């Protein structure tokens, strides 16, 4: 059987989804009560009173809860999931606001009613009185700290963090040339088409909770909910249904709703469901991206970077449940494929009275890439050198791998690149976009009154972050193979990719394999889906688990066929002697043989009963060191992350009159190690590029000075339609295997989004001859820049 590794296999998940048979959160729980939330209309206020009496009169209302109703453990602030020594002033929200609200959208009361319409009717009648406090909005206001978000957090500063290798200040001072830049990225958000949602059923007789949630980590939610509700882990099951996109926002847990809904379900003895609406998703989930950066760089006349110092300010919103992951990723991934002699980075993570900030696809990397690539372009401009030449002169070379950047990465481990070939990537990119031919094209266009520009950007992405994932592979007596891994799926095609790997290992047809993700009943130990880690982590784990199952199957079959296991192969679900397809048995039969039974409940079982004959009567039916069944369980825990890389280039036209930016070409070269399924990798890149373009040209969270989000709808938040994304995304791959996992793979889920802002800023700058230092850039922004430049 030919290998499925590397094949453009059609997705096995699609048949259900295109027939309308998907089961997303709100498709479940037809019998459940509906929860709706009363949310703060103010960015910053003290709660002076809550009157629920009128709301309780609404027909169909089952209960209304405020903070005062929450039992002790549930009334505490939600956990700070990822503590860090630099996070000296970590603050997290209460599930329902206690005395103060810190952003518009913060939950103040929960209404449970017969349906959502009635729940919202009642929510409208909950009368909350507020005493408004000054709102801190934007990084400048947070930094200035004239007003405080949390009275006990001086300077609005949640954290200050410094990393350095070498003496950057001294190296920069000694460098022949120096530049300083201020660079800014605004807020955007993951914005999956399906918002958050949670459904809970409490089984009073069993004393057990079953929870469905649209999450990126079912095991994380399970542990958090068990802890907050005072339940044993074994009494809580968390099941991830089909999830309508995540992109980071659904890794945060537990959301207030994820603890309140099961608590209410238990209290009321009825299933309860919460389905977030679009406005709620804008104001009550999480955003990302807003950072201000100040760069000082010292370099020589050849463009070689000697010292780099980056000071930046990160807007973490009202609370920091997910710790410092985003700014830490910016700090470390900013360096990309380059190797300055010395590097210093310092950031402040600042509170504002806005929605909290947690990772969104790319998670700090788009900002870091923007900062580094804008800096390199500035060096090239200063020296009059081609932008690709300056990059080449600063690349880490393939022979220098593994390359230790001398910093600590987001996983608390050394930032050490495992493999990569950056010069080869750049050569491919130049070829793909026609870099060397562009000058002539630009000139010809200019002669015809058109402004064209070209830009490129490079990135290195730490993927496959630990600590571990596991896999379980079980061969049923039907010959069907059941695979489970604990992390969750939001549309990435995990069922297909993991089935491809198991099919290759076990020698069974793809159609005989079923993969389950994110169901704690099937696999209890897992971390979650983030940091482009599924192929690396669960891919490796299910491969190792399938190997164990295969070993067992060969041993059992060898015994039955009285041959050596070394002489056996498994092809198309049949274990047989090499070169003799007739001397064999199906994997299903092997599974029957592996499990001595007492009861004959079907034909396969009858063949395995005590009286079916055979076997050595002097030995126990199951040997002391053996187990019944053909299954394998394995965990994969790499020593550190594996580093994917890539480079994008774009050609844009800027309209001389309207300042509209049109992307004429968008090229991607991408190295995520060995490709398991190129079709799926390309799909991930397409989606990432669309989000990159969105963050560069369209999407921003428009807060006013009072902390009101002015564009909290799809009408006003400019998420791209087909008309806003490049007509064609041209892709070329390079495959530099990772030495850190058995598959040689690296993550691919986030890559497409990372260089978007950097590459488009560079292309617009090239077209306009005006420095582009802040993204996203709208036609109005560009128009104003032109006026400012007198262009």
């Amino acid at each position, binding site marked *: 059987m030919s290998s499925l590794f590397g094949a453009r296999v059609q997705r096995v998940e699609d048949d259900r989804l295109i027939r309308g048979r998907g089961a997303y959160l709100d498709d479940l729980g*037809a019998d459940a009560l509906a929860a709706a939330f009363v949310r703060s209309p103010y960015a910053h206020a003290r709660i002076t009173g809550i009157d629920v009496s009128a709301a309780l009169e609404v027909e169909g209302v089952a209960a209304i809860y405020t903070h005062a109703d929450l039992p002790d453990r549930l009334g505490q602030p939600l956990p700070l999931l990822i503590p860090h020594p630099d996070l000296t002033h970590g603050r997290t929200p209460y599930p329902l606001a206690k005395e103060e609200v810190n952003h518009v959208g913060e939950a103040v009361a929960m209404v449970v009613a017969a349906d959502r319409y009635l729940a919202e009717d009642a929510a409208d009648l909950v009368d909350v009185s507020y005493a408004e406090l000054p709102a801190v909005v934007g990084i400048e206001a947070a930094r200035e700290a004239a007003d405080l978000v949390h009275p006990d957090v001086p300077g609005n500063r949640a954290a200050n963090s410094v990393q350095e290798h070498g003496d950057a200040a001294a190296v920069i001072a000694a460098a022949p040339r120096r530049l300083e830049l201020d660079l800014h990225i605004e807020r955007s958000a993951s914005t999956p*088409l*399906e918002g958050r949602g949670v459904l809970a059923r409490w089984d009073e007789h069993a004393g057990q909770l079953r929870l469905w949630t649209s999450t990126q980590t079912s095991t994380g939610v399970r542990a958090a909910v068990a802890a907050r509700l005072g339940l044993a882990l074994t009494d809580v099951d968390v099941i991830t249904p089909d999830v309508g996109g995540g992109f980071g926002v659904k890794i945060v847990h537990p959301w207030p709703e994820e603890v309140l809904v099961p608590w209410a379900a238990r209290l009321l003895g009825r299933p309860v469901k919460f389905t977030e609406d679009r406005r709620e998703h804008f104001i009550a989930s999480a955003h990302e991206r807003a950072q201000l950066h100040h760069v000082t760089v010292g370099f020589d006349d050849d463009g070689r970077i000697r010292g780099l110092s980056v000071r930046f300010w990160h807007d973490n919103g009202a609370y920091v449940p997910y710790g410092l992951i985003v700014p830490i990723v910016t700090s470390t991934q900013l360096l990309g494929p380059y190797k300055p002699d010395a590097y210093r980075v310092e950031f402040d993570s600042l509170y504002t009275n806005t929605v909290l900030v947690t990772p969104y696809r790319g998670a700090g990397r788009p900002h870091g890439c923007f900062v580094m690539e804008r800096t390199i372009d500035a060096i090239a401009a200063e020296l009059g050198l081609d932008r690709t030449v300056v990059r080449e002169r600063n690349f880490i070379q393939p022979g220098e791998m593994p390359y230790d950047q001398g910093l600590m990465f987001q996983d608390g481990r050394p930032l050490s690149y495992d493999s990569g070939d950056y010069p080869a990537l750049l050569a491919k990119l130049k070829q793909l976009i026609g870099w060397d031919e562009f000058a002539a094209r630009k000139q010809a266009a200019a002669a015809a009154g058109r402004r064209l520009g070209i830009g490129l950007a490079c990135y290195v992405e730490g993927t496959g972050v630990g600590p571990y994932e596991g896999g379980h592979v079980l061969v049923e007596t039907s010959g069907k193979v059941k695979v489970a891994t604990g992390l969750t799926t939001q549309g990435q095609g995990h069922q297909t990719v993991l089935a491809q790997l198991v099919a290759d290992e076990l020698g069974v047809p793809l159609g005989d394999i079923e993969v389950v993700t994110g169901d704690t009943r099937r696999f209890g130990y897992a971390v979650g889906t983030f940091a482009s880690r599924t192929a690396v982590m669960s891919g490796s784990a299910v491969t190792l688990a399938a190997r164990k199952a295969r070993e067992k199957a060969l041993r059992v079959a060898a015994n039955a066929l009285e041959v050596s296991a070394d002489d056996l192969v498994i092809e198309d679900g049949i274990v047989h002697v090499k070169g003799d397809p007739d001397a064999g048995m199906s994997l299903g039969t092997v599974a029957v043989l592996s499990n001595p039974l007492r009861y004959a409940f079907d034909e396969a079982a009858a063949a395995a009963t005590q009286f079916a004959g055979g076997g050595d009567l002097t030995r126990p039916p199951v040997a002391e060191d053996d187990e019944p069944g053909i299954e394998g369980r394995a965990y994969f825990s790499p020593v550190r992350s594996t580093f994917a890389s890539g480079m994008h280039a774009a050609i844009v036209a800027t309209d001389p009159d309207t300042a509209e930016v049109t992307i004429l070409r968008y090229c991607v070269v991408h190295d995520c190690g060995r490709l398991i399924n190129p079709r799926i990798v390309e*799909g991930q890149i*397409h989606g990432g590029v669309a*989000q990159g373009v969105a963050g560069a040209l369209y999407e921003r969270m428009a807060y006013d000075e009072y902390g009101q989000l002015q564009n909290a709808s*799809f009408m006003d938040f400019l*998420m791209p339609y087909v008309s806003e994304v490049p*007509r064609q995304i041209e892709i070329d791959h390079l495959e530099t295997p990772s030495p850190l996992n058995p598959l040689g793979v690296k993550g691919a889920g986030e890559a497409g989004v990372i260089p978007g802002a950097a590459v488009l800023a560079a292309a617009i700058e090239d077209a306009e001859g005006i420095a582009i230092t802040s993204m996203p850039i709208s036609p109005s922004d560009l128009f104003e820049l032109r006026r400012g430049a007198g262009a």
Partner: protein
Amino acid sequence: MTGEELHEVALTVNGTARTARVPARRLLSDCIRHDLGLTGTHVGCEHGVCGACTVLLDGAPVRSCLLLAVSADGCDITTVEGLAAGDGTLSPVQQAFAECHGLQCGFCTPGFLTTITAGLKANPEPDDEQAREMVGGNLCRCTGYQNIVASVHRAAELTRAAGLAPRPGAPA
């Protein structure tokens, strides 16, 4: 607050006569999903922008989140569940999405499938500009639309191959 007055709504949904008793304010999308139990139609924004809830109302694509169920009384509705043939054979549009990797998370997909089904009926042979225009009112956060546009072309091709819609001007 007293109970709401309920109204009987009679619909033909995917060829089957259905009725529901709903308050006047019940959205058609909620009626289809929660009263009729056809959860393939998804709700992404509830303000008519994303197109995930698109169904065919008397053959025309409409946003079911912008219609009240009572206003659809007497109408013929096709949802994503009604696109495949009675024997389960996928429609050309569904087939094309599977072949072209036209979906990832699948949440927006039902709206694209219904929209394109109607679009190809109106224009069986769209050029690239027309294919993009056909899906220009629906949001997808996963695919970057590349494989959705490819799916439109492939669906047109499959429709022609199945003889469902002869090429205009082709010999009879």
